[in-house]
């Protein structure tokens, strides 16, 4: 596959990839924490499983949304650059 194009296009592509990838680090760690801590809590008190699962999904969705802020801003920068 031959590479052609200009620096401007490649910088835009790099910007999209870098912004999305760097923005995924934090939410990735956070989502891992949420699931891990929920498993730990269910291990300690299995009778609370129902309540903890609801809270876990709420926390998961709130944390996971952060990556979409990075993705959204990356798209905006990609579109206007």
């Amino acid at each position, binding site marked *: *596959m031959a590479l052609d194009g200009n620096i401007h296009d490649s910088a835009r592509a790099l910007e999209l990839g870098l912004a999305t990838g760097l923005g995924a680090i934090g939410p990735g760690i956070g989502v891992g924490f949420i699931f891990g801590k929920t498993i730990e809590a269910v291990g300690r008190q299995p009778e609370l499983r129902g309540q903890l699962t*609801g809270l876990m*999904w*709420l926390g*998961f*969705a*709130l944390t*996971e*949304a952060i990556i*979409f*802020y990075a*993705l*959204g801003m990356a798209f905006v920068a990609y579109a206007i650059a």
Partner: protein
Amino acid sequence: MLPVLKVDFNPVSEFTDFVHNPYVKLPLGLDINKAVIYMWMAAAVTTILTLIVFRKGLKLRPDGKQTSAEVIYDLCQSQVARAGLPEEGMRIWFPYVATLFVFIWMMNLIGFIPLPFGERHFDLFGLSIPEFQIYAATANLSVTLALTLVTFFATHIEGIRYNGPVKYFKSWMPSGLPSPKPWGLKSPAVLILLGLIALIEVLSQLVRIVSLSFRLFFNMLAGHLVIAVFLGLASLLGTYFVLVVGIPMGIALYTLEATLIAGLQAFIFATLSAIYIGGAIHPDH
């Protein structure tokens, strides 16, 4: 070369191009375009499914349909509404959050059925048929922002109605602050800090609009984009060896999105709406 590789494939175009050529053009930007049709389909499917279940009344010994409907109702009541709404707000706002949950869920699910609403057309036995594509109404910021604004105004109107404007806007401030008395002997630093806290609290109320609408919008948009990119990887890169990776990954992501993310995002939207409205009705806890 496979014919599929010659297609000019742009995964973003199906989410942007439809705005410029609506089916019916109306003034004030109230065009009937693809997103509107998808919303109407979701509303129709929700209504018809509910009517099918409840048309003959509820039975004491429920059959399969009624059991499924009762599971969804129980989820709305025990998980979504009880998470935020107090008892006195239940009568007015439980129908709202339950409708939000079912309607958004249905919009997300219809978004995973390939339907002929594409911009480009292809020939099938002489008929010109639009391309099949997966598009969700919720992958459109206008739809999610409209739903969010309903929740936003409902929150503040209910807060003012139940508490009165003075008590409600005071309740935004965190408890334990020194009370501002402009004529008392307060140091100006305290007043400046109180003003900053008030500014932050007002901003946090406004950021709720952004976070609630962007969460749903980007979840669905990114989900559809990732599926489209993996399935169209061969066309994007110009080689069909990547089909070995692209097609299984696309199918796996499709399954994840359609089973988990579609329902989860509807659940989160409805739960957060309930929490916001409940927090405005009873600001002290």
